[in-house]
């Protein structure tokens, strides 16, 4: 793992020194053993701060949105799930491929910080659920790759120097059961379902963390920001939260890249992925399996149609 970090630092240092890029997005070692927060460096000598381990969970791609107007070229380190975010931004024309240098990394599988018992001493942590269910551990696109990871558009098993440890920890082991939670909710009665979601929407603070982290939520001006649009007022009432939750799900329908960041960053702990996964499951069933952010050319399920789509409204 250390050799990989050394390679990352060397590459960043060389890119910045040569001026090829004006900035690099990566991670750095945090104040606790289990923290590896995002890092943005612009000077070659800061490259030494770069770090990468099983706590570097953050998906850095939406940070690129701040640079959509700048002409500087930026480099960014991406894991498998992050890389799908890059493809999402390119497909949505929010990031110019020439203005970003994507560096693909092998993914060791990220662990669940919630399970930390002893803040001081390192101890083993379980693999995040989204990593157990991960089907795209390797980057789907990258200009450079480190740690002999390979770029592939197909779902598969982890490749690269961290692959063996990742497989041993169980990355992608539950790939088949990603719709398990959805099925559990679908099995509930109508009232039980409503009660469950009512409780979730009550907790929502409308802090929009989920929207800010999401690579698919890349509007210049969000309808929930400006009440001039009149869709919904900004008070965090349960009904308006429900409107926000369902509308956002429909906005990212067929575009969500299944990176699970919205659920992770939500301060109120709302299981947002259970909604997105429901739509993904329905898209698979209705229009054929489709994984967003894996194929640059393919049009999203809601942006094209087939004459013999399922018919339920006759």
């Amino acid at each position, binding site marked *: 793992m250390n050799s990989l970090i050394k390679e990352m630092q060397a590459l960043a240092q060389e890119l910045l020194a040569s001026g090829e890029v004006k900035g690099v997005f990566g991670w750095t070692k945090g104040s606790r053993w289990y923290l590896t927060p995002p890092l943005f460096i612009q000077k070659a000598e800061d490259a030494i701060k770069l770090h990468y381990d099983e706590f570097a969970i953050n998906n850095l791609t939406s940070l690129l949105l701040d640079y959509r107007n700048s002409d500087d070229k930026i480099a960014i380190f991406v894991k498998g799930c992050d890389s799908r975010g890059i493809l999402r931004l390119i497909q949505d024309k929010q990031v110019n491929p020439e203005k970003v240098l994507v560096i693909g990394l092998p993914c060791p599988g990220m662990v669940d910080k919630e399970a930390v018992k002893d803040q001081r001493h390192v101890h083993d942590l379980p693999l995040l659920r989204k990593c157990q269910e991960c089907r795209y551990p390797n980057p789907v696109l990258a200009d450079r790759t480190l740690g002999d990871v390979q770029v592939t558009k197909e779902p598969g098993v982890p490749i690269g120097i961290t692959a063996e440890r990742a497989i041993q920890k169980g990355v992608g082991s539950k790939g088949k059961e990603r719709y398990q939670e959805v099925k559990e909710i679908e099995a509930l009665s109508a009232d039980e379902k409503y*009660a469950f979601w009512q409780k979730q929407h009550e907790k929502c603070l409308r802090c929009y963390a989920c929207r800010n982290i999401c690579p698919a939520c890349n509007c210049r001006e969000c309808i929930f920001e400006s009440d001039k649009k009149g869709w919904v007022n900004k008070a965090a009432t349960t*009904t308006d939260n429900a409107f926000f939750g369902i509308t956002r799900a429909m906005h990212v329908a067929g575009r969500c890249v299944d990176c699970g960041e919205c659920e992770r960053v939500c301060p109120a702990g709302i299981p947002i992925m259970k909604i997105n996964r429901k739509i993904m499951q329905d898209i698979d069933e209705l229009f054929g399996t489709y994984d967003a952010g894996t194929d640059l050319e393919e049009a999203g399920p809601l942006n094209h149609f087939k004459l013999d789509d399922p018919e339920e409204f006759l």
Partner: protein
Amino acid sequence: MSTVEDKKQTAQDWEPNIVGFACNWCTYAGADLAGLSRMQYPPNVKLIRVPCSGRTNPQFVLRAFQKGADAVLVAGCHPGDCHYSTGNYFTRRRYLLMQRLLEYMGIDPRRFQARWISGSEAPKFRDVVTQMSEEVKALGPNKKLREEL
């Protein structure tokens, strides 16, 4: 005018309020034809005229439930007959997902219907409206997703 208001609220003759989005070229024309043929159906469904069923944003449906509609109908031309040629193909895909999402959120499927009703299918318009009114009247007022006044 308060007489009209009070009468409505009395429990046993409660009447559902159903918001309908009707595409101007087919369903709205079908509704007009139902009128021309003097068909009779319950007065609970009120149509909002939209250029195409593809113009009906799922956010309008959520807004209707939020503001107290007891059921919502989205109706347009049969796929292939759309005046704008491809409008209702997108409607079909979008509302296949929205219909399942609403059910997943706990809304009774009978409270949300998307149907294809062409300009000449006046009897079908009457039947859809009558069936929805009766079913929703049996279900009672919709509390879900509704804003507290």
